[in-house]
């Protein structure tokens, strides 16, 4: 029974992975990748790791893939075009290296198979949320905290990379994803009826765009 389930989910994962590479439309690739994530979550459940399975579905199939699909839709991605390969002379070397890789992988798997690691038949609490949580907050507290710093850096980096500053005329088309604020929010001398906007991020850049003096503090409104 477990063998049948393993074959089912492993086949699903490999099939979806091949579809991910073979598709030319990035949106179909994203959907295939979600299939890989779901089947891997099922394999995690079979490995008695329900917490990781839940996190896999929530974080990967939920958050990250929503972000990817959002960007695909935002950028209106066209189909990938076929181009002539410039590295055709490397094909023989690739075949040889692939054979070496397969041999290495086969050796490692044979070695592991020989070591008689028996799957747990009795009920184990290794994968339960409580055991993961207690390990995470005692022995592995420092990596956990460093992880939070990493996430903070990612947030700041993503904001810095994706920002864009430009003064736009009234009625102009705006690039999707840019933040547009009305001009009078930044300069009191502009009347409220002025419909011009500013694509901006942060007050200093706005001061630069509007050519305001350096000591002009935009956060103070007198």
């Amino acid at each position: 029974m477990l063998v049948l389930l393993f074959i089912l989910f492993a086949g699903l994962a490999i099939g979806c992975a091949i579809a991910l590479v073979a598709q030319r439309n990035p949106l179909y690739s994203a959907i295939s990748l979600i299939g890989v994530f779901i089947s891997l979550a099922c394999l995690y459940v079979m490995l008695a790791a329900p917490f990781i399975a839940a996190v896999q579905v929530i974080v990967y199939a939920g958050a990250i893939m929503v972000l990817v699909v959002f960007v695909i839709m935002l950028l209106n991605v066209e189909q990938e075009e076929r181009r002539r390969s410039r590295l055709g002379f490397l094909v023989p070397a690739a075949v040889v290296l692939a054979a070496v890789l397969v041999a290495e992988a086969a050796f490692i798997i044979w070695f592991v198979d020989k070591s008689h690691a028996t799957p747990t038949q009795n009920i184990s609490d290794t994968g339960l949320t409580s055991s993961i949580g207690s390990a995470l907050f005692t022995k592995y507290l420092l990596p956990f905290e460093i992880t939070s710093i990493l996430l903070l850096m990612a947030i700041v980096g993503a904001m810095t990379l994706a920002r864009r500053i430009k003064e736009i005329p009234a009625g102009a088309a705006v690039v999707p994803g840019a933040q547009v604020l009305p001009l009078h929010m930044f300069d009191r001398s502009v009347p409220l009826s002025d419909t011009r906007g500013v694509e901006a991020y942060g007050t200093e850049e706005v001061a630069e765009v509007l050519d305001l003096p350096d000591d002009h503090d935009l956060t103070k409104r007198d």
Partner: protein
Amino acid sequence: MVPQLSWYLALSAVLFTIGVVGVIIKRNIIAMFMCIELMLNAVNLTFVAFSSFFQDVTGQLFVFIVMTVAAAEAAVGLGIIIAIFRNRESLDVDDASILKF
């Protein structure tokens, strides 16, 4: 008969190889990004398999950290992709082969 540890390792190797092949042959930058996610997941499967078979929770904590790194990578990577698209109106990596212009 139950699935052995080596089965999971073989599956993980296959998925990782498909991810590597995807990174090499794909030209769309978002598709390459998704292939990198596939490689991270293949490694995660290895960690969970070892953790389960040796009854040690450390492997699953590694998976936790890898998922965090993947989330950070998704945020920063997609920010870079949006910046590249604004500059070049293209997502083809061959169009972004020069860093400066």
